[in-house]
């Protein structure tokens, strides 16, 4: 079965991310599922950036331990990747800047000939890639014309030079997969939110969710959508409170450091019951850590962030498809149950690009507002069996709608009376049950692999694709809780029923899901950790799984 990997490397500023995406689109057109990993340090120009595009005839989301093609725009692209380069690897390189085996292309000269700017070097090397890989030039033309809106002619011209400058070294066969959209995790989240009825997005830039801000800012005009980038994260979440109070379905995005600044108002949403949806992209911590690398070490922080006790929804999708689905769910349920929700993702998912092979879910309908007996007697925090009170927004003639961060009565007026305090607390806590009923209707625990195998790979978030693949190879069971709060204890126990050995894979040091499993009496036999900021490549993880399986 065809399973190819292409590394594109160069300096920051060489347009490596775009080049990698184009390579992915070439495979998309050729009939493959694709996945692209993007690796970059925290700098703007220079250094070493690279992408790895992998293409196969099954959905994928992980890189491998070998590379079939290297497209080298700098020396590091060859030197730093010797561990995955073999003598079978086909290398094309910019002969002006790189010394290597393989086929050199004098990009500099071609750019001059075409009067093209240096940043078009990536088009040239993509042309060369098509040449060595036996990809027909029309396929490249098709992809360029869709993906490069500006300067198409010139890009095609330099690509053609590259194409012609090399000789075909292999011929990538056509695959059988229908071309699909390629979505980064950030884009998938954005689309999920839009499907859920998003009306406003507020964020302060922070890796790995900045690109969600950029994506929605770009999309804002046509919906229309209110996109705001305020002075800091505190302002971000408070604007979201105001927008929600005003009736606008709103999401906000950040990473751990920014989320810290939001915790106080996150807790406020536990009390004032404004539906707040946070896209929380994990990266390597603690603190500034490795800002452009990945990690799964914020789960317990998110589970407990903010003083006091209140129900919250936490979903942790594992790839772009799940990101679309669960982001929509998060926005919808947050509003339905008037609880804060977190879409907990990480750099690997946010900045990875996946083929979207599932159909889009249906758009959320505008839920009718729950009834309130009469507007004149409207009480924002009316005590109900479900704990969910009717929601109205100003202006509502005849009603004074009072949102309150203090302990309050049904009207939203502050109270310190013990019995009322308890009644209102219990009203709010009942929403946990209501929310649980909703999530029980959903595939809160995703399963795969051999569903009755005695060995289980347990994972969460962006390690889903790599674990899925290994589970299939090893004929293991694959279990991924997608909802982490309210914790789907029964569903998870059911998914694990009959398991003799559970191997948990996490990109952290202390075992975040493991702690949560322990709390719920779910045993884990082995835990595999990684905490250098890099996602698990397929073979490496497979080996580590085999060691303990």
């Amino acid at each position, binding site marked *: 079965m065809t399973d190819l990997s292409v590394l594109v490397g160069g300096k920051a500023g060489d347009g490596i991310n775009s080049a990698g995406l184009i390579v992915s689109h070439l495979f998309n057109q050729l009939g493959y599922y694709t996945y692209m990993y993007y690796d970059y340090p925290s700098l703007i120009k220079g250094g070493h950036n690279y992408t790895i595009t992998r293409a196969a005839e099954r959905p994928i989301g992980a890189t491998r331990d070998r590379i079939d093609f290297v497209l080298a725009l700098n020396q590091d692209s060859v030197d730093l990747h010797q561990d995955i380069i073999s003598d079978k690897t086909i290398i094309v390189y910019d002969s002006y800047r790189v010394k290597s085996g393989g086929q050199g292309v004098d990009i500099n000269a071609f750019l001059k000939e075409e009067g093209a700017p240096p940043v078009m070097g990536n088009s040239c090397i993509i042309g060369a890639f098509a040449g060595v890989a036996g990809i027909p030039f029309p396929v490249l033309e098709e992809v360029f014309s869709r993906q490069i809106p500006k300067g198409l002619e010139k890009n095609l011209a330099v690509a053609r030079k590259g194409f012609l400058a090399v000789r075909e070294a292999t011929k990538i066969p056509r695959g059988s997969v229908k071309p699909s959209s390629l979505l980064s995790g950030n884009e998938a989240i954005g689309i999920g939110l*839009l499907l859920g009825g998003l009306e406003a997005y507020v964020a302060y830039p922070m890796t790995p969710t900045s690109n969600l801000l950029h994506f929605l800012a770009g999309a804002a005009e046509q919906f*229309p959508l209110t996109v705001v980038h305020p002075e800091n994260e505190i302002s971000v979440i408070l*604007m979201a409170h105001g927008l929600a109070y005003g009736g606008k379905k709103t999401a906000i995005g950040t990473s751990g450091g920014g989320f810290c600044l939001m915790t106080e108002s996150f807790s406020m949403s536990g009390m004032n019951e404004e539906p707040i949806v946070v896209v929380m992209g994990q990266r390597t911590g603690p603190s500034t850590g490795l800002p452009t690398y990945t990690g799964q070490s914020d789960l317990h922080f998110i589970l407990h962030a903010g003083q006091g006790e209140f129900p919250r929804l936490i979903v942790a999708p594992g790839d772009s498809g799940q990101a679309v689905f669960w982001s929509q769910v998060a926005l919808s349920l947050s509003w339905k149950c008037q609880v804060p929700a977190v879409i907990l993702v990480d750099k690997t998912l946010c900045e990875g690009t996946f083929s979207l092979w599932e159909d889009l879910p249906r758009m959320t309908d505008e839920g009718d507002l729950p009834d309130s007996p009469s507007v004149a007697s409207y009480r924002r925090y009316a005590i109900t069996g479900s704990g969910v009170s009717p929601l109205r927004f100003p202006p509502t003639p005849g009603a004074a709608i009072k949102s309150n961060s203090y302990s309050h009565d049904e009207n939203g007026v502050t109270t310190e009376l013990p019995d009322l305090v308890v009644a209102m607390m219990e009203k709010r806590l009942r929403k946990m049950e209501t929310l649980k009923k909703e999530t029980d209707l959903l595939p809160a625990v995703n399963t795969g692999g051999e569903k009755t195998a005695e060995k289980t790979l347990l994972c969460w978030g962006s390690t889903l694709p790599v674990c899925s693949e290994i589970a299939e190879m090893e004929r293991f069971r694959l279990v991924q809780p997608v909802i982490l709060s309210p914790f789907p204890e029964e569903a998870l126990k059911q998914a694990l029923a009959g398991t003799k050995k559970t191997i948990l894979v996490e990109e952290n040091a202390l075992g975040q899901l493991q702690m949560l499993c322990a709390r719920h009496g779910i045993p884990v036999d082995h835990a595999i950790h990684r905490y250098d900021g890099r996602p698990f490549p397929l073979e490496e993880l497979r080996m580590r799984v085999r060691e303990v399986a």
Partner: protein
Amino acid sequence: MASRNLITDTQNTWCPGCGNFSIQFALRDAIKGLVNEGVPLENIVLVTGIGCHAKMADYLDINSFYSIHGRTLPVATGIKLANPELTVLCCAGDGDAYAEGMDHTIFAAKRNTDITLIVHNNRVYGLTTGQYTPTSPLGYRGRSTPKGTVEEPFNPLTLMLASGAGFVARGTSRKLPQLKDLIGKGLRHRGFAFIDVLQICATYFNKSELYDTRGYELAGHDTGDFDAAWRRASEWGYDRDAPIGFGVFYQKERPVFEEHFPAAKPTREKRADGIRMLIDERR
């Protein structure tokens, strides 16, 4: 509607003699004024921080968002973005607006969101028992500074002028009619309106005498002249003895923030089309 009594029956727990009562009356009357002009009462939203002042949210029978300490303005901005038709005002403390949430105050002025900010400037943290704030005079003895503060106060008026505020005024809880008038003007100003209210804290910092004897009403002052506003606002630095002007120091309209954002909800069709386009672009 206009006849609704705007005061809730919640028990009031301000200290006897507290300046907050005057502000409450001035605010209620100013709101009544708006309602009489045809603004539907349900279109008015009050946002408060946390502190003595903030109890206004419980005491006024209007839409309110009782926020957390220091965080009135970003909530108010969100509300304006959600619905620019609403009249949004904030009651904040000096601890709220000048310490915990100073940055928001500057950015609200910069953005020129159409919000009226009333700062109940009693120059202490009232509700946490009278510690110094950024506008307490040098040497103020509070429980966190028993030997007296070592910091000079700043002048919120000049800070707001420097931040681009288009309406800068100062009132006092000692002069009720003028205060009502100032709040009314602030509410009618299209854009960010800043009103520093020198409020008496009967318990911790009762400066009635100072405000009564040194206070004067701005007269013959050109509110369109920035330099004149600056000079007037600089007269008293919240510290040394000097005449204390009350009135509108500066007023100038410029485009408001929220008018740059879509007001309409996207239709289901528009949303579906947009999503389809985004998906197609990535194919």
